[in-house]
């Protein structure tokens, strides 16, 4: 089995487990009964809904700084009838920024995790598949891919993300690719590990003994049965991704416009106005934490539901 993942949350997914369709059905059943899962689902649902219907929740445009004249270096107007949460440092409506910030976080989180999942799973499947096939070429491909992953793993993930973002410049793609790339090694190692584990499973050995071609075993049995842990990890990584997007913004590597609605960026901008308006920092900070909590809860519940040991 491989070393557990590289995510800062290090919510490690076990890569073993007996597979089957019933597993998923049973998992869904257990999920519905778990209060933890329901709480997580509620948070995530609220987050997704807010993100989806953001324009309906506010009469203003995101990133509009039309009230810039009302903000000065020493005062930021607080909540009023026109502005539910007051203005922010740049003279935008804070409520609008928060709501559109949810959209931004969701898009960045999902897209970057998708990038990480796709590339990582492809690499992992390549290495794991050829590794399970065996033979000189298979082992060689496995080794080559895993050395590449090792190189990526030898640099701490946030550092990797910062490095990539620095090359790609200040734009949305840079953030998504940077955060996604930092997740690649996690998924690659995880999928390869569980595929190699499956490769030694009894049913595979049995199938091999029955004379089924190895390639077919890999594609139609080993691979599908290994994706469970990867999916769980992806859910957990959504939480990490949302936090890391904010961390990149915090380090000044986000998008170009200072008034753009992005929680991490809002948190940074609020720092030197903290004496005048602490809400400007507390709101986005809490929002990041709560959203990450939602995805974490779902991911954990999913893992528990899929974990054969809890079915005892």
């Amino acid at each position, binding site marked *: *089995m491989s*070393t*557990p993942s*590289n995510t*800062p*949350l*290090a*919510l490690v997914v076990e890569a073993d487990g007996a597979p089957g369709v019933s597993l998923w059905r049973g998992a869904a059943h257990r999920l519905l009964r778990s209060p933890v899962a329901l709480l997580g689902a509620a948070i995530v649902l609220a987050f997704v809904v807010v993100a989806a219907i953001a324009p309906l929740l506010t009469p203003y445009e995101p990133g509009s700084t039309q009230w810039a004249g009302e903000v000065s270096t020493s005062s930021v107007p607080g909540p009023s009838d026109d502005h539910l949460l007051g203005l922010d440092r740049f003279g935008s409506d804070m409520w609008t920024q928060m709501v559109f910030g949810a959209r931004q976080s969701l898009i960045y989180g999902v897209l970057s995790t998708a990038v990480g999942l796709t590339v990582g799973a492809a690499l992992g499947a390549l290495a794991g598949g050829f590794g399970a096939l065996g033979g000189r070429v298979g082992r060689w491909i496995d080794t080559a891919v895993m*050395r*590449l992953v*090792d*190189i990526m*793993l*030898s*640099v*701490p*993930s*946030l*550092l990797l993300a*910062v*490095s990539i973002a*620095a*090359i790609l*410049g200040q734009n949305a793609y840079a953030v998504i690719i940077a955060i996604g790339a930092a997740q690649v090694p996690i998924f690659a190692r995880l999928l390869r590990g569980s595929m*190699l584990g499956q490769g030694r499973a009894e049913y595979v050995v049995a199938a091999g003994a029955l004379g089924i071609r190895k390639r077919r075993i890999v594609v139609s049995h080993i691979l599908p049965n290994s994706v469970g842990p990867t999916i769980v990890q992806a859910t957990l990584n959504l*939480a990490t991704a949302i*936090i890391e997007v*904010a*961390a990149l913004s*915090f*380090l*000044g590597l986000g998008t170009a416009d200072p008034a753009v609605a992005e929680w*991490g960026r809002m*948190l940074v901008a609020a*720092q030197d106005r*903290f004496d005048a308006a*602490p809400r400007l*920092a507390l709101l986005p*900070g809490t929002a*990041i*934490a*709560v959203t*990450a*909590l939602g995805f*974490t*809860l779902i991911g954990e519940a999913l893992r528990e539901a899929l974990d054969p040991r809890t079915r005892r």
Partner: protein
Amino acid sequence: MLRFALRRVGLMVPVLLGLSLLLFMWVRALPGDPARALLGERATPEGLARVTEAYGFDRPLWEQYVTYLGALLQGDFGNSIKTGQPVVSSFADRFPATVELGLSALLFAVLLGVPLGYLAARHQGRWLDTLAVSGSLLGVVTPVFFLAILLKLVFADTLHWLPTVGRQDARIDATHITNFYILDGVLTGEYDAAWDAAVHLVLPALALGTIPLAIIVRITRASVAEVLHEDYVRTAEAKGLAARTISRRHVLRNAMLPVATTIGLQAGLLFSGAVLTETVFGINGVGQYLFTAISQRDYPVLQGYILFIAVIYSLINLLVDLSYGLIDPRVRTP
């Protein structure tokens, strides 16, 4: 076991060579001219040309890489473009700050996390357990920088209980031998200096240690809970062994192996958090400097620092894997 370890160390060589090449290409892919970073607002074209030539940035890439690698093999990591300081000595100056921060964060996480996780497992479903579980969940999802900012605002800026910035009070004229400030204070008998350095570490260590704390609580709890259900523990109970003996002799020892592994993993991960924590608390460590070097296009510093970090990081990961090997012999044949 030894062969496994040696093989792993041997595997690090191609990884690091590959990394040095990737790094070299990466820093040169960074947009922005290091010469302009050096000269600033009113750089003249002649000035830029001179600096570019002096640093050899105009020569073919492969030639630059060969030169770099050659120097590297002789232990010469080059000098910072910005300050002229040798990369090795600037790393040696800053590394102790990062280690000190990382170790205290880890210490905080372990000393609090293991007992808490153990107690939570022993009292499953009760208020202590609920508190530990939900608390650790919160700990995991709170961004490091948000927590750091909050801690700083409350305990330093508002209550004035703790210092906000740096590693030691500027008014203390302390002797520094190892650059581990607490250790230095103890070694030289300047206990006030050691104390002051420790006080400066409290908030950064809390901020950086919270995520490892949360994870250690969870792993300890899960691990202890699992061992408690094992047959041999039940047998021991049935045999009438005292609860304390059981927990010491069987539960703790068997539950601690995964916990130890987790601790090792967290040690490596602290680097990521250190960049953010050092930035918030103005700690002159490796993470903060590295980040500055990225924005300043300080090529030699970037290459050298990331290589150093990768070596250390890989070594920690190796230790973790070795401890895995101790638990589960199967991993020795991947």
